[in-house]
Structure formats: C-alpha cells, structure tokens
C-alpha cells in the first residue's frame, strides 16, 4: 500500500506538507520555542481557568455521586445505561483518530501525518481517560472496580468472560497502555531537544530525566526506529479491536437497534469520523494561535477532511442498511424501532442526528469546505455533535421502548448528568492546554525528516 493516500495525483497544485523556506534549525526553533520561550499569555491562562472551572464541576458531580449513588442520574429501568455509556462511547471514539494517525498512517508511509500525530496522540490519551471514567463510575461501586479483572480470590468470583463488557476492560486498558507507550516513545528524541535547548537548570533537568539519556547516537536511532515500528504494529489492530468490542457491548444483546451485524465496522468508521473531527477542531485553533501554519498546512486540513468524508459515508451506509433491513426483514420489532426513531418521542434527536452526521458533512465534497479553516471547524463541530447524538439514539432510544409496552419508559438526563459530561469536556481541554505548553505539540524530529535537506540520495 505504498503511497496509498500520499500520491493523490491531481492536476492542480496541492499545498505542501511543510511550507518552503524552513531549515533544520528553524523547524526546531519554531516548535520548541512555543514551550521554552513563549511567555505566559492572558489568553492561555484564561482558557486554563475556564476549563479548570469545569474540572471542578466534574469533581463536584463525581463527589456527590459517590455520596448518593447513581440515583442522582437520569437512569431508570428500562434505560439503565444513559449518559454514562453514551459519553463513554463518544469519548473512546474520539480517541481513535490518534492511533489511526500515529500507527496506521505511519505503516502506510503517509508522511503528512508527521505534524499532527503528536497532539492527536495526546488527544487520544486524554479522551481515553475521560472515556474510562464513565463505566467506572457507572458501576455504582467504583472502589471495587478491580473485581472486573480476573485474579485469584478467596471469594471464588470471576468475571463473566463471555460478556463483551469484560472484553471492554481488556480492550480499553490495553489501548490506553499502548497509546501511552507509543506517545512517550515518540516524545523521547524531542524531550532531549528540549533538554538541550532549555536555559533554566531545573527545566533542563526535568526534560533530561524524561529523555532517559537520549544522545541521538546512531545506535539510539536504530533502536528507536525498531521500537516505534513494533509499537505501530501493535497499535494497529487496536484501532479496529477497541471499537469493535464496544460495538459488541450492544450487538450481542437482542434489543432492536442494538442487535445488528454491521455494528463492528460501522462503529469503527464512526469512531474515526468523530476522532478526525476532534483533531480538526484542535488543529485549526492551534495552528493559528501558535503560528504553526507552516507545519499544519492546508494539505493536512484537506486530507483530514477527506478521511472524515469517507468514514462519514460508511456511517451513512450503516444507517441506510439498518433502516432498509428493518423494513425488509419483516421483524415487527425492527420495523417498530425504525418507526419509533422517526416518529417517537425522540424523533427530533434522530432528525438532528441525520442532519449533523449525514447531510451537513456532504459539503466536504466541495474543496472550499475542506481547505477553509473556519468552515471546516464548523463542519467538525457539527460532526462531533452528530456522533454524540448517534450514541444517544443507540443507547437511549433503543432501550426506552423494546418488546413489551409495559416496560416502556422515558429518559430525562438530570443536571448531574450534564455536569459530569461537561466536566469531562473541561478536563479534556484542561489537559490539552497544559500539553501545549509543556511538551512539543508537533514532533520536531519527524518534521525535520520532511525537509529537502534530509532527503539523502543513495546513489
């Protein structure tokens, strides 16, 4: 799959992956100065404080939850999953873009990924952290969450290995570990650069300790390359497996709206869809605020938009097939599910979902919407809202009316549901703000490999 996406050979001139006029030293300076030289700005502080407010809201919501229990949420029977699972799936989906960009695009030799992989990986870690929180607190007794791991115990209690919920425990924890390792290993050469460039002795020591003695010798590089490639190989199946397992949480059940065989690839596509939307929502402001437009060029925006369009169409295919089969199969519960989505009490949500996820993103067929940052930012926002609505429709609308009318119900999220959700949004952005200031948000050494000077001819 050499040059799979790389050589998109159109007649028109395409934006480069790095603007001309840069040398090794300017690339290094431009990226590391954001961390080492740029003074604290009011904007950054205001942003951090704003997000910190939401972090506190999250702490409040979770603290109160620990005191009172999950009854403070809107979950009821039959809708026992509610916001917690909606948000879990949404966040974990967002995390997928990071691994896709860093591992799969690397194996496909997509060099354009070099300027967005670092912060996409950071985004993955923070998103997975936010995601992991939800099932944990949804268990009701998070202090005994370790029961989910199989360990020999005097109670003789083991997890139910046939339940996808347990597979989730393994899938998500493996994913978090691998992503963290991948991110950290990728950072080592850049941490050493920061160590070498820092003037303050304490800053130097801090980065020095994290750089783990990196000197940039040929032997270091050779081992580094092997380790990175191996980690990429390990991370690749995870892109598919994690959201596949998440989809099994639903699909192995027999509730109409959950039990459909297309769910695994459809969930994976949806995850990448929302993940790229988040990447764009972060990349667009970052490149303009920190003056990194030379490195995150129009080409990156356009390629990411294309990935979004393609995965969005796969999601649309999933909707179409599900709706058609609901009618064609002749199962009255499936048919009712379709009717209920279109005409039931949550119909507005469903129509909003279709508008956000299917109709509006079609503007990405037009080149202007792929390259114009403001327009692309807006489309990405719409997609993220749409993907959240999709999970809401799957979780809530499928559960609220299933086989027996006597067990129908309605779901109304409480303020605590909203506090927890917006709190995780705050936590995510809070972490991103710090990441931007203390670590190089673009991989310095990988950017250097894109420069003409680094293209050494063999002959």
């Amino acid at each position, binding site marked *: 799959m050499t040059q799979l996406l790389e050589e998109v050979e159109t007649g028109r001139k395409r934006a480069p992956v790095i603007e001309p006029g840069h040398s090794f030293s300017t690339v290094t300076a431009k990226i590391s100065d954001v961390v080492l030289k740029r003074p604290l700005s009011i904007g950054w502080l205001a942003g951090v404080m704003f997000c910190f407010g939401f972090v506190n809201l999250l702490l409040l919501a979770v603290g109160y939850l620990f005191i009172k229990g999950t009854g403070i949420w809107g979950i009821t029977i039959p809708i026992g999953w509610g916001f917690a699972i909606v948000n879990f799936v949404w966040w974990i989906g967002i995390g997928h873009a990071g691994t896709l960009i860093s591992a799969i695009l690397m194996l496909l030799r997509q060099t354009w990924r070099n300027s967005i992989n670092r912060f996409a990986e950071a985004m993955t870690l923070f998103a997975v952290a936010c995601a992991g929180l939800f099932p944990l607190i949804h268990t009701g007794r998070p202090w005994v969450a370790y029961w989910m791991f199989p360990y020999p115990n005097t109670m003789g209690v083991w997890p139910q290995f046939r339940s996808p919920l347990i597979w989730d425990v393994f899938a998500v924890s493996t994913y978090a570990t691998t992503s963290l390792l991948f991110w950290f290993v990728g950072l080592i050469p850049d941490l050493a650069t920061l160590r070498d460039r820092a003037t303050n002795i304490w800053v130097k020591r801090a980065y020095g300790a994290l750089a783990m003695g990196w000197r940039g010798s040929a032997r270091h590089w050779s081992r580094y390359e092997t380790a990175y490639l191996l980690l990429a190989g390990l991370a690749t199946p995870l892109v598919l497996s994690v959201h*596949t397992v998440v989809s099994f949480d639903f699909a192995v059940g027999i509730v109409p709206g959950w039990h459909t065989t297309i769910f695994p690839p459809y969930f994976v596509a949806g995850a990448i869809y929302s993940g790229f939307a988040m990447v764009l929502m972060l990349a667009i402001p970052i490149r303009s605020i920190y003056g990194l437009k030379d490195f995150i060029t129009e080409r990156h925006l356009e390629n990411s938009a294309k990935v979004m369009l393609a995965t969005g169409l796969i999601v649309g295919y999933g909707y179409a097939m599900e709706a058609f089969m609901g009618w064609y199969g002749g199962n009255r519960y499936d048919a009712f599910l379709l009717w209920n989505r279109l005409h039931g009490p949550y119909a507005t949500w469903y129509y909003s979902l279709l508008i956000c996820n299917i109709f509006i993103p079609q503007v990405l067929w037009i080149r202007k919407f792929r390259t114009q940052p403001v327009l692309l930012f807006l489309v990405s926002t719409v997609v993220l809202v749409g993907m959240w609505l999709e999970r809401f429709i799957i979780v809530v609308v499928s559960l609220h009316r299933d086989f027996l009318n006597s067990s129908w119900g309605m779901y109304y999220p409480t303020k605590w549901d909203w506090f927890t959700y917006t709190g995780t949004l705050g936590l995510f952005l809070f972490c991103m703000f710090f990441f931007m200031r203390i670590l190089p948000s673009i991989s310095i050494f990988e950017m250097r490999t894109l420069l003409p000077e680094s293209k050494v001819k063999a002959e």
Partner: protein
Amino acid sequence: MTTARSHEMNFLAPSVVRTIGTRSLVIGLIFAVLAIVGAFVRPGDFFHAYLLGFMDWLGVTLGALAFLMVRHVTGGTWGMVIQRIQIAAMRCLPLMMVLFIPILFGLPHLYIWARPLDTVADKHLREHLQEITQTYLNPHGFFIRAVIYFAIWAVLVFFLSKWSAEHDHPPMRDTSARTKQLSAPGLVIFALSIGFATIDWMMSITPGWISTMYPLIILIGELMSAMAFCIVIESILSRYEPMSTMLKPSFAHDHGKWTLAFVMVWAYFSFSQLLIMWAGNLPEEITYYYRRFNGGWGYVGLFLVVFQFAVPFCLLLSRPLKRDIRRLAFLAAWIMVMRWVDLYFMIEPNYSETFRLTWLDIVVAVAMGGLWLAFFCRNLASRPLLAAYDIHAQKVLEPVHGGH
C-alpha cells in the same frame, strides 16, 4: 528520460494472452455444453450452480471495477501496473449481463418468493412473504432493480475504460482529476448498488433472514477475488515483455499486502457476523448458522476458516513471499478457489440440509470461467498493457533504486 523510454517500448500484450483466450474459450464451450445438458436433466441443481458460478465471476468483474476506483481516489504507483488487467476484467461486464439472463428464467428454482405462496409450508414465512412479495421481492421488481444495478456499473465501466483508452495515444496527459471526480461518488453508488444486489440475488434466497453485514462480506470478497486474479495474471505476463520490465518486486509486495488486508477484513466481517448471531441466538437468525454447522456443512466452514483465512494469513505475513510474484500467484490462485468455496458455503446450504456437491456446481463454474477468461483475454489483448501516455504511468518504468 522515462518519457522517451515509454515511447520506445511496445506495450502490447504478448501472444500468450490470445493463446490463453482461445484455450479458455474451448474449455468454456465444452463445459457449457455439459452445463446445458445438466440444465435439462437436473434444472434445480443447474440453477443453484449457476447462481454460484455467476456470483463468483461477477465478483472478479466488479471487484476489478471497485479496485480501480479505489486506486483513482487514493493514487499510488502500485495500481498502475495492474490497471489494464483490472480494466480488461471490468470490461467483462457485458458478458455478465448476458449471463444474468438465464437467472431470470430460473427464479422459482432459486427463490422461494418466486414460487406460488401456497406451496410454502411455514406459516410465519408465508405471512411475511405475502407482505414482501407485494412491495419488493417479486419478479418484476427483481428484474427492474437488476437493470438499475447493471446500468450503474455499466456507466462506471464505460467512462473509466474510455478515459483510460485515451492514454494510448499522444499527447502525454494527466486526467487524474477527472477520473477521481467520477470514482469518488462512483464508489459510494457502487457500494450501495452491490449491497442491494446482494440482498436481491443472495440474501433473498432465505427471506426473513437478514444480516446488515452480509453485503459487506460479499463486497470484500469481490475485492479479494479481483486482487487475487490480477496477481495471477501479472505473474503469467511477467514472463514476457512488457510486464517483465514493468513489474517490480515492490509492486508485487504491495499487491500482496492488499491481499493480506482483504483476507483479514474478510475474516473480521465474517467472524463478527457469526459472533453476533451466535450470541443473540434468535430463531430467525441462528437458522443460517444452524444449517451451516450441521449436516456436514460444518466441515466446509472449518475448511474456510483454515484455508481462506488462517493459512493465507500466515503465508502472507512473509515478506519474501509477497515479493516473489511466482509464489504469490500460487497463493492468489488458491484464494480464488476459496472464494468459490465461500460462495458455495453461502448459497448451497440454503437448498440442502446435508452436505451436497453436484457435478454441476463445478461444471457451471468452469464453463462460466472459461467464457469469462476468453472475453477477458480478448479485452486485454485489444489494448497495450500500460497507458503509455498517462503521466502517472511513467513511474512504472523508472529503474529500481538500490535494494529497497
């Protein structure tokens, strides 16, 4: 330099293509006579075998079309060297249209919904059929929809083939923007059309049984068939000019990687469908697998797991194998055989509870394959093997640098 080089070279297909074409035609005709005899002697078996053979060879045709569009959208030199093979394969679509006609005459043999409803013993099924035959599953609808599917594919084949032919004459041109503009929406329409065609032609054999994954399994199978077929043909051609110059180990490597990816995705889709249905264990769904696990069919399923997934997967992990076109071609030929087994496993158990393989299953597939190959060889020989005046084709002719 390379431009001059492309002008000097002769890219016409070697004479072996015509030889293969003639021999395939002879084999195809002999088996076709046998098949026609079978059609009169055992019409039921004949039509089951016919659908199987048709879906198998349609897969190569449409897989080539889809793969060509993927290449147009994503770019990449790996596709240039097999582009004309893909085009020759997709230009077999007119043959597949003609071969579709007998299916229209065999509808009652193939589909329960095309028979008189009072012959259906199962009450629930009869009720379902009474509804669905009114609106969707009836011979008229089946015919009209088939016309629509073929029309969509024909339009795509026509333009992509025509535009590629323009590169056989000077001046040197770059039409990638135009092909891309057709291929991107083309892929979307293709995915939908093949999805609905699969529902009509295969899934409707058991009305009431549904799987949203099923069309995707067929789609990925078609891509796999087409890739495997291209590898086999490029391997044969690589003994002669111009393919011996064009085909570099790195291209074979990429084709091998694609095959590996398809093998994995096929397994992923198939296993997901199985797991979800097994876990749900609903009577209207699990019957599909219940049949396929019992009555001897289970061995065919196991055979597929081992020889369509496990063995090709392990072998394709090897880098030397992927770079050696001769060895890769053996594996690709095997995968093509397994594609037939997979379709056999999807189609035949619907008609028989116990394992059943008739001579017609093989005869019809060979007859169709012979005719298809003859048509393919005629297509392949009618144009040069490389679009010499396509600006992107020049990379194929660049000498190999270093060991890579």
